[in-house]
């Protein structure tokens, strides 16, 4: 402790807290966002340590104990249509469901931000070419585009990820383009040009720092949509294939069980719902924490 206070005394300058520490500070005072973050962290931990948490093998079932109700001894959340332990399958399901829901947004963030920032900063013909191409994909409702692409490509984890990534590139590219165009017009970019800096340096120092934040916040808002869509693809028989545990696929295979064990059949959807609403609430909190005006 003494060394810390000593270094503070000798610090010659007043240093203001940076932008991001301000954002984190405001976020920590937002109970809803913090709760949502805790739920998300719990889900991630559940996915990572599924083999240690799950009480049973999620793949092995016995036809003799099919569709047991919630509260059955040894199977607290019942069993599915093939007699597999629901609790274990829901825990393992977090792995593929999170992977399929979250990854496409990050891939789309990377490509969409690249396309949009390039279009916004370069402007002119490059902008027109890139953004008109983006417009074509934006002209499809997102659900339809995801289903069209993965329907044509066929089922499978990779095809699902690819389709969803393509679906989320256009909206992110659009936001990135409009944010970058706005920043490009500001005078500090002109001032930087007047100092003789190259375009690459200006983008690195002055553009990226000011546009990546808003684009990222927008992208986090898409995670919840992506989760619902990803599980929706599996629900339609696209995306993840049986017997893998994935919430959307589980919902699909349990559809006929609603007449026998309705609440067991509804459980995977509840997981999707909780995950999706947590990401939505966290994204909302992040957005207001990053708003300097508030």
């Amino acid at each position: 402790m003494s060394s810390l206070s000593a270094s503070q005394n000798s610090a010659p300058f007043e240093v203001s807290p940076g932008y991001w520490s301000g954002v984190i500070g405001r976020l920590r005072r937002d109970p809803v966002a913090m709760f949502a973050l805790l739920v998300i962290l719990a889900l991630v931990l559940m996915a990572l340590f599924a083999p240690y948490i799950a009480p049973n093998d999620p793949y092995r079932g016995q036809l003799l104990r099919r569709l047991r109700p919630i509260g059955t001894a040894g199977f607290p959340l019942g069993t599915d249509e093939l007699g597999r332990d629901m609790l274990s399958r829901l825990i393992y399901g977090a792995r593929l469901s999170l992977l399929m829901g979250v990854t496409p947004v990050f891939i789309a963030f990377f490509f969409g931000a690249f396309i949009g920032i390039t279009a916004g900063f370069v402007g002119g013909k490059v902008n027109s070419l890139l953004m008109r191409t983006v417009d074509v994909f934006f002209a499809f409702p997102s659900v339809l585009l995801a289903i069209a692409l993965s329907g044509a490509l066929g089922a499978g984890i990779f095809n699902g990820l690819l389709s969803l990534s393509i679906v989320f590139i256009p909206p992110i590219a659009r936001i990135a383009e409009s944010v970058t165009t706005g920043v490009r017009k500001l005078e500090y970019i002109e001032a930087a040009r007047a100092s003789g800096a190259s375009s690459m340096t200006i983008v690195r120092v002055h553009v990226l720092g000011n546009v990546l934040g808003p684009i990222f916040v927008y992208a986090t808002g898409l995670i919840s949509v992506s989760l619902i869509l990803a599980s929706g693809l599996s629900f339609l028989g696209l995306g993840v294939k049986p017997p893998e545990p994935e919430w959307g696929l589980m919902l699909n295979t349990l559809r006929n069980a609603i007449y026998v064990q309705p609440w067991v059949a509804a459980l995977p959807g509840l997981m999707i719902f909780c995950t999706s609403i947590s990401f939505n609430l966290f994204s909302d909190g992040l957005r207001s924490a990053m708003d300097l005006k508030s």
Partner: protein
Amino acid sequence: MYIAKRLLYTLPVAFGVSVVCFMLVHIAPGDPLTSVLPPDASAQLQAEMRRLYGFDKPLPVQYFIWLAKTVQGDLGVSIATGRPVALELSKALGNTLMLAVLATLIGFLLGGLFGFVAGYFRGGWVDRLASFISIIGVSVPHYWLGMVLVIIFSVQLNWLPATGAGPGGSADWAWNWLHVRHLILPAITMSVIPMGIVARTVRALVADILSQEFIVGQRAKGLLDFGVFRHVVKNAAPTALAVMGLQLGYLLGGSILIETVFSWPGTGFLLGQAIFQRDLPLLQGTILILALFFVALNLIVDVVQTMLDPRVQRT
């Protein structure tokens, strides 16, 4: 002037959409013929079929042949049923349109109500409650909500039918209770999608209008709330209507999951079958029509909005 520009802008987008739809068949793994031909077809038959379907020509040529046919209303023949895709679509499209329009209306009314109340009592518990409901609306997987409603109202209470569009799985629609009761659950489920978004939009609009100075002054003077109410509705309506129009487009394109849950004989159900049976012509035709519908709806919304409020010119 703006309307002419908007029309001209739509053409290249529609062209691009048609290219994407055309390419769908060609990004599909394997030879597009494999789904048509028996696995033991001779090489000669394969070559014959290839020529017949035009698959031997270069892609751009194939595209323009396909486009020329499409413009004339020929969307090809479904592999699974052997009937023209256009015929299959025309029946399904009416069912989907009916469902989507009803869902949009319900969603708009509920969303508008929640949004208005939330924006009017901004910051209070009513606002927080309404905002929470709208967050639930945008976060809930609607296909799961459909299942839950079926569990409650069909399985447990046995009030409403779970699937289909008419008694005994009949696909012919009629406006009587026997048919309408099939529409209730899917329409309510679907209405949740636009509800959350409409509520958020209306809340922001109302809060914004109410914070304008002269309104604040009027409310401070305790002037009649009805005048304020009328002003708010008049100013919020164009944007809210635009959101509603766009949402209708999303629902038309996004109805596949809900139609699958309820076995509703619309375009989405058709699409589900096309995917299940790898019926690529049916997939391609359905997606093209739905996407063009969405493009056209976007255009109409923009034009109508510009006519209602010339200040708004979306680009």
